[in-house]
């Protein structure tokens, strides 16, 4: 079960670089043909300074490329085999463009035990604040992870 003594702590700040080619790869995997995500020309035509991040692109900052989810689960003593993703929320504070270097502050916000028909579970809330290379806050995220015990 998740270690409640870790609530309020988090991961050391880590860096996630928004790679241009990954934005295109991500949009194409989704099947999103919106020209703003596929080329700089498409983005400029819509008034962006460069290719903007698709709204869910920030998920990359938690996955294999940074290992942040795995590090968070390890720190909290959560077993990977028992976790489900319950909710995901993004608050967009500023535009994120290809080439940006984001500093990610991931915090273990809360762990709440819930009893259900199928047994007890922990609801783990992770909050992350992303600032860009100019120090501007550009995104806040909240992930609700469910650990079945």
């Amino acid at each position: 079960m998740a270690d409640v003594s870790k609530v309020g702590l988090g991961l050391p700040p880590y860096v996630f670089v928004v790679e241009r080619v990954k934005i295109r790869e991500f949009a194409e995997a989704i099947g999103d043909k919106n020209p703003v995500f596929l080329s700089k020309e498409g983005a400029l035509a819509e008034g962006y300074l460069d290719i903007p991040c698709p709204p869910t692109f920030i998920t990359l900052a938690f996955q294999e490329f940074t290992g942040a989810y795995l590090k968070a689960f390890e720190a909290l003593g959560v077993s990977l085999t028992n976790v489900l993703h319950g909710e995901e929320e993004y608050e967009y504070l500023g535009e994120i463009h290809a080439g940006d270097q984001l500093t990610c502050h991931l915090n273990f916000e809360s762990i709440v035990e819930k009893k259900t028909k199928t047994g007890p579970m922990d609801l783990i809330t992770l909050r992350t604040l992303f600032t860009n290379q100019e120090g501007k806050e550009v995104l806040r995220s909240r992930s609700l992870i469910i650990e079945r015990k």
Partner: protein
Amino acid sequence: MPHYVDFNGLQVGDSLPSLTKDPITKVQLVRYAGASGDFNPLHTDDSVAQKSGLKVVIAQGILIMGFMAQAISGWVKKSDLKRFKVRFMGMTYPGDVITVKAVIKEKQEGEKGLFVLCDTLAEDQNGETKVSGQFEIMQPI
């Protein structure tokens, strides 16, 4: 250039034009795994999925959220999107056909611009909701 929704002609309770995606394929799940870095084998390897009691691999929940994001960034300029949140309700499989819908829940004009809150969902070909959520936009007037 995308044809965005003109909210001036719409009211609370009105629906936005729905987006129906092509059927999900296993190849798409593999591509999304590589693109997103979510290498959980439940999404790419049937034998692992079967050990967990599933018949075949399941789609990444965030992929379905990505379908919803595709719909939203077709409805409004992405830079007008201020908040997007979802709850993952059910598993989605290869072959499923996802449709993304949205209904206007709140609409207010203020000093900062036009604020619109929409309920949104992604449902499969049987009308079963897989992901539900909300998004907020702020458009300059």
